[in-house]
């Protein structure tokens, strides 16, 4: 998993739960990196799992909710570093629809070893999109948060429903319905 995901996660934990909680979840996890992350490095996803589990224990917040919150936090990083993508698309629906074929293609160019979820996109009509999320990481709530934030960025109302295709949540079907500008 890319280093930036860890550095931003730690940033969020320090910001929302305090340095103490951060220190706690790092010291309690068995981390190969010993909790020292650099954005340009690559780290095992297992470390993230441990960090999330410990945070959920300390904060009494379910893991998925934490992932969702992290997704909302992480969106800002995307807009800061990759504003060109947001300028390229004029509609959030188009942007979402192009994740697999455009955005991820570009990501792989920079990070050839990146492990990315796959999205099977199906356009239902001009306002609706169905999307099948597949990833061993089961971080679909992260994806949901990013999508919501995208619509917010373009100032459009959206309703995102999801349905878990299995218990682990490695395959999730999203139904995104846009209500146009707010």
């Amino acid at each position: 998993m890319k280093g930036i995901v860890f550095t931003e996660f730690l940033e969020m934990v320090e910001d929302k739960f305090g340095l103490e909680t951060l220190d706690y979840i790092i010291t309690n996890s068995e981390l190969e990196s010993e909790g020292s992350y650099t954005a340009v490095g690559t780290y095992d996803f297992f470390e993230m799992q441990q960090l999330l589990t410990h945070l959920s224990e300390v904060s009494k917040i379910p893991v998925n909710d934490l992932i969702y919150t992290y997704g909302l936090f992480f969106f800002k990083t995307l807009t800061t570093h990759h504003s060109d993508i947001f300028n390229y698309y004029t509609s959030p629906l188009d942007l979402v629809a192009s994740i697999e074929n455009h955005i991820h293609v570009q990501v792989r160019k920079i990070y050839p070893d990146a492990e990315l979820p796959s999205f099977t996109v199906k356009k239902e009509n001009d306002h609706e999109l169905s999307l099948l999320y597949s990833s061993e990481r089961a971080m679909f709530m992260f994806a949901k948060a990013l999508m919501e934030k995208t619509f917010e960025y373009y100032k459009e109302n959206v309703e995102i429903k999801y349905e878990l295709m299995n218990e682990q949540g490695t395959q999730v079907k999203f139904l995104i319905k846009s209500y146009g500008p707010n």
Partner: protein
Amino acid sequence: MDLIKKVELLERALKREKNARKKAESILEDKSSELYKLSEALKNSNQKLSKHLKQTTNQLEGVFTNIIDAYIVIGIEGYIMNMNKAAIKLLGFDNKEENINVFNLLKKEYREYTKEAFKQLYKNGTFSNYKAELITKSGDEKVVQINASLIYNEDGKPIAAQGIARDITNETLLKQELQEQKRQLEIIMDNSPIGISLSKSNAEGLTIANKTLVKLLGYSRDELNNLDPNLITHPDDREWSLKYLEALRNGKLDHYSVEKRYIKKDGAIIWVKTSARAVREKNKKYYYQVATIEDISKEKEALEKLKESQNRLAALIVNLQTGILLEDENRNILLTNERFCKMFGINALPKSMIGQNCSNSAEESKKFFKNPDGFVKRIEKLLEEKNTALNDQLYLEDGRIFERNYIPIYLENEYKGHLWSYTDVTIQKKYKESLKAQKEKYSSIIANMNLGLLENDLDDIIVFCNQSFCEMSGYKKEELIGKKATDLFLTSKSEKFYYDRIENRKKDKGDSYELSVKNKAGKIKHWLISTAPNYDVKGKKIGSIGIHLDISENKVLEKQKEQLLVSLEKQNEQLNEYAHIVSHDLKSPLRNISALLSWTKEDFQDKLGKDSLANLDLMQNKVEKMDLLIGNILKYSSIDNDILIEETIDLNELINAIKDLIYIPDYISISVKNELPHIKADKTRIQQVFQNLIGNAVNYIDKEKGLIEIDYSENKTHYIFSIKDNGIGIAEEHHEKIFKIFNSLGSYEKSTGIGLSIVKKVVQLYKGKVWLESELTKGTTFYFSIKK
């Protein structure tokens, strides 16, 4: 949280940060060394590639500069960057000497096409078979064909285009010429009014068939390509035309021309004239067969019609009322008719005479003619000259007259024979002659008559005049004809009268009038003119004919007569007046003498002797007679002067009154045989007439028993009265004399010689006559008539 714990926590956090930084630095270090190695490798390979490229370029340049075709490299802007010798030769330009843009060499009309070609070149990298016309340095036009491709730089961006150009100017010209020739041939073929076909002996159908043939036969070109011409030949013509074809095939014939029938696609039959020719070439097993097919349906039809009309003509000639003899150039009879045989008394059928030679016929038939030698000579002359001669008159011995025409017949300027035609004009001729004689007769009448004849056209221009007119007018004939009659003859006085007369004359009516004209000498003449419109044969008015009579002399006489009458009247009047005066003036002295005589006789009755008294009585009688005479003269002279009084008179009463008035001795009896009519007249005058006539009868009766009969009869216009006596009678020689004044016959003492004159004058006044029948010693009957 206690401070120590906090410090420990922060230390841990710091340691993590330091570790993270070191990790990041080592990652970056690794990455940069990795990049350095990569760039070194790239440099190396780049150098290798450049070297290789240069080598290849040199090699290629060598190839291109040495190839025969022109090779040109142009930049993106179109400027020539490189060109080989052939290209320099082709264009005349050299890029080493001047900057040349290929677009400027193009002919205008190729610019658009070239732009499009360049677009294609950029898109596809190559463009082949580009053709355009260029203008070389020397100004020549060249047609070039170019195959081009793009040249890219290291980045794969096109930087230039290279092309191989071929000069195809001559090739194009040749191609054009060939096409033009082909087109010309096609034009000739397709516009020929005659069908043309070309076929190969070793192929079925026609290789080429022109439009006319297609139209002629009704089959399309494709159909004709697969059609055996013999199959569309009319079944009746198939066999023999195939023989011709075979003769052509096996070389017996090279050419033939026949008239035959084809059956068109629509089944109609068409007559054509086909000329076929075999065109054999050496070293070739097959030969070409060229055929022209001409539609002669119309000619055929015309020929049929001609035959028909010839037949009709022949029938016509046979039945013609003119004798016809048609001979060929050798004088053999081609045609003659019944009329001809009849005219010359030939007892043969016209048909049987065809083919007979006529060389001797003039000699044989000359006996028919009045001038046999002339007849023969004329025929010889005609035959020699061969000119058309019409209406020769031939006089035959038997009195007939023939009119003969000789017409030579030429066919395409070649003498082919001649046609004799004879017409019996005997009757016509005689008629003409009599007509001519008549005309001459009338012409001489017109020329010699005393009346001037003038014929004018509608503009009053003189067309004809006779001799008399010339004499009348003083002009010669040639001075008159063509002149305007009105200009010549009208005077200023008669002009108005003439034009008024013309104006008022009824259209197309004749007119007679007197006109004063001037003759050539300018002398005024009076003409009586009778004119009438003149018409031509068709009844169209063409002018007028006028007959002129010179009445100038009559005019003079008339004038003299008028003058005479006037003076006579005057004299008469004077005479009447004179008579009146004289008789009045004479009467009173006479009355005085008579009174004086009576007084002298009474005074001297006793003193005068018997003889003297008798003389006095005689004197008295003479005076009385003189008085009576003067009275009667007065009456006579006053007859004209009195105005006639018209009243109804009962003549029976009138006669009775007269019986009482005059002394009638007893031995004379007066009887009225028929009751007399009542007439309208002046009673006094009528009484004078009856009284004078009855008085005369009484006076001249010498018989013992006198008899006077009064009678009357009437006709349509007059009453006729008669007074008959049995007196002394009047000798014939005196019958006229007695009516003259102062003439009396015999010795009757009281006769004044005026009585009958008065009778005549009165009767004339009533438009009657007086006449008498008489026999000496037997008696006289006076008749007089009075107009009703």
